């Protein structure tokens, strides 16, 4: 929440304080009005699971998406992006006690994520071939989660293993999360309008929560 409080003023300040520098007789209308980029990405998300035994702190997936930006000036751009990721798996094990005997419930969660983000970018330089940028914004993530819960078995040294609960597949659920993020990257043009773009962004909730590294090609309009 503190991060959100920090990011929002930065984004608003971007709108309010930064303006084009019409020096050298430059026209005040932006050189490009909009851009569209198709991206592929790797998305890493920190696991929410509170179980003591989780196979990895982060789960990652391959991600594809589309980003569309609107230039208010040559340096300020608002961008909307949408992406969807492939499935990733998280395994966790939770200790339980049944009839005075300790055992574990093992759960394998299959997670796929869709993300909608809105951000404000500051793009450095004007009308050059290489434009670094910094950005801040907010993304909404929808995580589709399906849990496969293994049978619960009690192991007793004096008796054969006894299954006390069958394995089951939990009803799929969707969790919605809003995270502020900051990012940086660059656009490298290979002709007047076409460009290669890559960026990295970090989303926060309780500390660093999500890392998205994207690369793709796009065009200015």
């Amino acid at each position, binding site marked *: 929440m503190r991060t959100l409080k920090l990011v929002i003023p930065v984004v608003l300040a971007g709108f309010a304080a930064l303006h084009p520098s019409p020096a*050298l*007789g430059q026209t005040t209308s932006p050189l490009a009005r909009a851009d569209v980029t198709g991206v592929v*990405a790797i998305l890493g998300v920190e696991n929410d699971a509170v179980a003591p035994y989780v196979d990895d702190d982060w789960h*990652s997936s391959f991600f594809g998406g589309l980003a569309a930006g609107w230039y208010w000036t040559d340096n300020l751009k608002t961008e909307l992006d949408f992406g969807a990721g492939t499935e990733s798996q998280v395994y966790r094990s939770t200790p339980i006690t049944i009839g005075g005997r300790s055992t574990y419930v093992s759960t394998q969660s299959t997670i796929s994520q869709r993300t909608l983000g809105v951000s404000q970018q500051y793009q450095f330089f004007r009308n050059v071939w290489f434009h670094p940028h910094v950005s801040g914004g907010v993304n909404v993530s929808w995580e589709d989660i399906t849990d496969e819960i293994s049978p619960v078995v009690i192991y007793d040294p004096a008796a054969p293993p006894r299954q006390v609960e069958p394995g089951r597949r939990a009803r799929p659920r969707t969790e919605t999360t809003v995270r502020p993020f900051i990012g940086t990257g660059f656009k490298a043009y*290979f002709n007047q309008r076409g460009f290669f773009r890559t960026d990295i962004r970090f989303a926060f909730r309780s500390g660093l929560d999500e890392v998205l590294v994207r*690369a793709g090609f796009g065009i200015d309009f």
Partner: protein
Amino acid sequence: MKRTMAWVLCIALTTAGCATTRTTGAVVAPSGIAVANSRVLAEYVQRIPLGSPVRVQFANGKEMRGTLMKATDQNVVVQPKTRVPEPALEIPLGEVMGIALESKKGGSVAKTIGIGVAVGVGAAVGFLLFLVAALD
């Protein structure tokens, strides 16, 4: 007057580096010298072959690169070196601190290297992303 001009010319050429001339700031220099330097700058610019790549340094600290298209006593016309072509700019010499002749070859090579590095890094990152996702 000739001696003054000679001094000004010598100072300008020795302090500003090869193929570069600068006016000293009108704020800090006596007005007579500033006027003389503007004249030197005008003479210098008019001797640069039209079509040469130049770097123009403005009194406000900004800088631009472009192609010299015309030079008169009062101003220079420079076609900015940009990704998307822009109209040539007529710049009053009073706003110019200095004009440096740029190497055609160096700029082009630097640009090509820059683009190559950017695309190479991008392609490498993209490939790594693909590998990481495929192995995950």
